[in-house]
């Protein structure tokens, strides 16, 4: 009975200190997998793993960075499995959706362009840009999540930001000429 009580308290603590990362993990999953259902599945998967190691979590300096690292690893594993080939069709659907003018209007045209151009970046650039410009992680945290060194991170980030800028400027000029 006492044991059960202690367990419930840990569940409550887990909910307030660990499950609160869910949106961040989900956005990272979505970024890497381009599939809402699978991203949600990955997040649950990561939380189950964290739950099973809940006694050791105190050893980690940042459980958030750990959770992000695990999410990244699970996503990359899933990208490697053969059944992903089937799901790639789903991904291109999503890309088309993003380029769909109606949806673009809803999201705000330029936001859609950004989403689109990020999606076209190489995976490492996408990952670094997502962690920095969407989630605002410190470079040290990005290093621990991605396993890249600081210099490599800066180079990737710079390339990604410039690529997005290029798309935006092109679109702006096109819109300007169109008027």
């Amino acid at each position, binding site marked *: 009975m006492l044991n059960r009580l202690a367990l419930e308290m840990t569940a409550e603590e887990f909910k307030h200190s660990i499950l609160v990362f869910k*949106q961040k993990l989900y956005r990272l999953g979505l970024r890497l997998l381009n599939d809402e259902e699978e991203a949600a599945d990955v997040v649950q998967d990561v939380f189950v793993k964290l739950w099973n190691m809940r006694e050791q979590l105190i050893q980690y300096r940042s459980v958030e960075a750990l959770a992000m690292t695990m999410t990244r690893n699970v996503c990359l594993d899933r990208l490697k499995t053969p059944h992903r080939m089937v799901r790639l069709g789903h991904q291109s659907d999503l890309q088309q959706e993003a380029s769909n003018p109606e949806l673009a209007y809803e999201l705000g045209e330029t936001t859609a362009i*950004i989403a689109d151009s990020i999606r076209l970046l190489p995976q490492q650039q996408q990952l670094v840009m997502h962690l920095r410009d969407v989630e605002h992680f410190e470079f040290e945290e990005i290093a621990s999540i991605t396993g890249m060194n600081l210099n490599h991170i800066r*180079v*990737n*980030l*710079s390339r990604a930001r410039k690529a*997005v800028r290029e798309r*935006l400027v092109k679109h702006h*000029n096109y819109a300007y000429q169109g008027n």
Partner: protein
Amino acid sequence: MHIREIERLLEKFYNGETSLQEEAMLREWFASAEIPSHLASLKAQFAPDLEKSKAELPDEAFDEAFFQLIDQHEKTHKAYSLRKMIYAGLGLAASLAIMLSIYLEFKPRTIEDTFNDPALAYEEVQRAMLFVSSKLNKGMEPVKQGTASFNAGMEKASDFNKMSLIKNYFKIE
């Protein structure tokens, strides 16, 4: 903020060298200030929630589903360990039964002395002997009867001896 300062920060930004604070400053500037036309195209890149609000997990529903899943995991784990314990118990019982039967089959058969008191042992032996002798006497009765009729038969058979007397008689003759 001076436009020169913004341009300097932008250059740092595109080289991947700005700090988080500097990036926050840029976002703030693009959100509030009158933006000169040559920088207007960049505004979207400094939107405060770059693609963030697009998709979200349902907060409470997710937590509930998660703890249900955990409960389920732990229940199946418990059921599994209970089953394992039952199997272990059955295995233990079976191996004990086998060992016991092997022991009973092959144990050395020694005749054990059941009496500690010599007097008592003597009495017991005597009792056993008496029992045997009484049975023996009883068993001797039919034997006696048998020998009696045998002797009777033998007496009659002794008449044959008379034949030799006759034979002797004729020899003498």
